[in-house]
């Protein structure tokens, strides 16, 4: 019962768009985020040839910023000191890890136990496995079970990849069986594999593997990662990733649940326009004189509150997702101010930014990240943070943030479906393409993710249970297929309308937005179109609250 139209979008569907030269809801001329398509990633991945899998990196944005700042610095002494400082530590870091690598004992003996282990309850019947290994076949990460015992399996994966590479001069991308997809991604010195029984497409799985790779880069930088394996092909990367499995674990759960990944967009915390403006002002007035500051980002509950940036530089949504993941998975930020190296792979995979990370106050769970290219800036940024927090408190911003986070019933954005007043709509998600921001009718609450994670820890198993009431997570799961069809490279669909006995789903993509709506079953087409029209008008009306409509700089 699916009807797909590629070209002829019905005339009246365009109605909300062509009202004079009005922009689609959420669009503005300047964006803090790079407008992207999560599927672009996949396209570029697929077009890579064999030779290119060895990652080379282009010029470094971080050194560009550093040299720019230095050019204007009055003190020539400072100049010399800074640049030599960088070299020293870069070399230092390498010699440290290189010397350590010599200490590692080899433990690659596969025994018959391996085979039995593959049948153990820790590993069978999982919906999705993710394995990461080095191109030498050394296990680095397994989503379930103990990767130490998976040396045999990793050997097989490595053999599969290298046989196809060497004998056929080709790249192994997928293996499909009746109920299972295995997706392979070779990136630099690493091999990443997803084995999935979920309804995610190969494209979506590759995207998730790319994210997992970027998570590792974010901890080490691409330069360091490449250099480690150049120096020692057999290196056990787990030494350097100790404690970071948690980040990959969380990221995988996060990607399965949050539409932000499906859409390649960032969700903003809905706030009154004035409150957001005050927060942004608190940051800009405090930080405009701190010359090395590249980004100031405030987030709460996986949602963006504001982002202030250095002129000329914007952030890629995927970098922000990694920051969300870092903040959400780390308890240590809650107890003290932190100062940590962070690499943002899309921004500059070759180097670290230094981040001052702290929560605004005990009574407000908004987290402020100040990212700089200057490694000695902690004290300056720490003072800036206290000033910002003070200004925000005086302007009543903390109350506004808490209201939004606690989903105060008085806010129209808390239960949008009630406010829109179209009872047939059960769920929707909307992405404004030009600003890479999204809004959905029921933001996935953190508690629920937490719940899910607890259950997941025990299981992650495939269960056949009757779903009586769909959760927001289930709706997003249902949209995957549609999202895939819309982004299909060969024959992209613009509008899909599908009714089934359970529900009616409409997905629609234009130049400006992507929209996915779930209606009651038996919804007729023209009725649905009218409803969508009203929905878009509501989003337009609320756009100042639910989206960040400007792109402030320091």
């Amino acid at each position, binding site marked *: 019962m699916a009807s797909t139209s590629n070209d002829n979008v019905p005339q009246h569907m365009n109605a909300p768009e062509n009202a004079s030269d009005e922009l689609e809801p959420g669009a503005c001329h300047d964006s803090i985020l790079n407008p992207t398509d999560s599927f672009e990633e996949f396209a570029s991945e697929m077009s890579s040839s064999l030779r290119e899998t060895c990652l080379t990196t282009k010029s470094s944005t971080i050194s560009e910023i550093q040299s720019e700042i230095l050019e204007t610095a009055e003190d020539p002494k400072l100049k010399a000191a800074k640049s030599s400082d960088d070299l020293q530590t870069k070399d230092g870091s390498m010699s440290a890890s290189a010397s350590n690598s010599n200490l590692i004992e080899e433990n690659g003996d596969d025994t018959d136990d391996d085979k039995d282990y593959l049948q153990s309850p820790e590993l069978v019947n999982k919906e999705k496995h993710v394995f990461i290994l080095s191109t030498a076949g050394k296990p680095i990460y397994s989503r379930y079970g103990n990767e130490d015992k998976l040396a045999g399996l990793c050997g097989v994966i490595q053999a599969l990849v290298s046989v196809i590479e060497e004998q056929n001069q080709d790249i192994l991308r997928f293996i499909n069986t009746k109920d299972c997809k295995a997706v392979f991604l070779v990136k630099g010195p690493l091999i990443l594999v997803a084995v999935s029984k979920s309804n995610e497409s190969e494209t979506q799985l590759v995207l998730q593997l790319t994210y997992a790779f970027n998570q590792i880069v974010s901890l080490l930088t691409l330069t360091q990662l490449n250099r480690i394996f150049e120096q020692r092909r057999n290196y056990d990367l787990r030494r350097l990733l100790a*404690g970071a499995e948690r980040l990959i674990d969380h990221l995988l759960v996060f990607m399965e649940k949050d539409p932000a990944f499906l859409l390649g967009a960032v969700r903003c915390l809905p706030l009154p326009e004035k409150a957001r403006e005050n927060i942004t002002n608190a940051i800009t007035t405090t930080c405009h004189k701190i010359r090395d500051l590249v980004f100031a980002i405030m987030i709460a509950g996986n949602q963006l509150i504001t982002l202030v940036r250095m002129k000329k530089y914007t952030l890629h949504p995927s970098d922000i997702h990694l920051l969300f993941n870092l903040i959400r998975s780390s308890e*240590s930020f809650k107890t003290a101010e932190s100062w940590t190296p962070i690499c943002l792979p899309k921004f500059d995979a070759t180097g670290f930014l230094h981040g001052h990370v702290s929560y605004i106050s005990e009574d407000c769970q908004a987290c402020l990240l100040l990212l700089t290219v200057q490694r000695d800036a902690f004290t300056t940024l720490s003072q800036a943070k206290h000033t910002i927090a003070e200004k925000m408190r005086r302007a009543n911003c903390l109350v506004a943030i808490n209201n939004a986070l606690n989903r105060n019933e008085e806010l129209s954005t808390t239960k949008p479906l009630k406010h829109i007043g179209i009872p047939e709509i059960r769920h929707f998600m909307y992405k404004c393409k030009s600003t890479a921001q999204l809004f959905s009718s029921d933001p996935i609450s953190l508690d629920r993710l937490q719940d899910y994670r607890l259950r997941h820890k025990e299981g992650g198993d495939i269960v056949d249970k009757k779903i009586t009431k769909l959760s927001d997570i289930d709706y997003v799961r249902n949209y995957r297929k549609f999202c895939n069809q819309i982004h299909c490279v060969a024959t992209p669909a613009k509008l899909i309308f599908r009714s089934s006995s359970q529900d009616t789903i409409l997905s629609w993509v234009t130049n400006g937005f992507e929209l996915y709506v779930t209606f009651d079953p038996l919804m007729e087409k023209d009725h649905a179109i009218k409803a969508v029209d009203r929905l878009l008008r509501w989003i337009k009306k609320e756009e100042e609250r639910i989206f960040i409509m400007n792109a402030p700089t320091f």
Partner: protein
Amino acid sequence: MSRCDFKIVLLGSEHVGKTSLVLRFVNCRFNAEIPYQNTVGAAFCAKAMRSKEKDYSIGIWDTAGSERYEAMTRIYYRGAHAAIICYEPSSHESWTRLRHWLHELRTVEDSCKVYLCGTKKDLLDGGFVKREVAEEIVNTYSQDLNGHFLTSSKTGENVDELFQKIVDDLAADVEVMKTVTESRLLLTELDKRKSKKDVCAC
């Protein structure tokens, strides 16, 4: 420029309990419910302390034990007045790493006072773990250093004593106090200039 009089840095391999030690000292609490999580980068805490009727503010850098951050850790101990190197008496590996830090500090920050701290004393006392690092070895090592404490962040035993000793030692050190007085003066000077400027700007 730091607003703290004394900079103290915590070093040691992962999972020895550096963060628990700081949280016990600064917040006077220990939460056994929270599962272990590694520190990301380094965390900073400040606390006011008294020594011989005088007030001092101390800044404590709790560094990540993970090898990943090893090269970065130098940023944190640069200019530190004192370092606490932690080890777990029941883990020989943590003791081996301690020697690495000791060497590092001696070459990079030779004026820094060094204290050894054995952690998780409660586990040792309760017989839950076995001592792997012989006391004689620890004693030999700590002879040349500024002190050795065996602490328990769970019960709080010896935690305040450790930090009090550090502050007492630093306050008694003429060289250190000279720089502290200088930087205090400089800061008040800067503040004055700043507030004047603010007035002019309005």
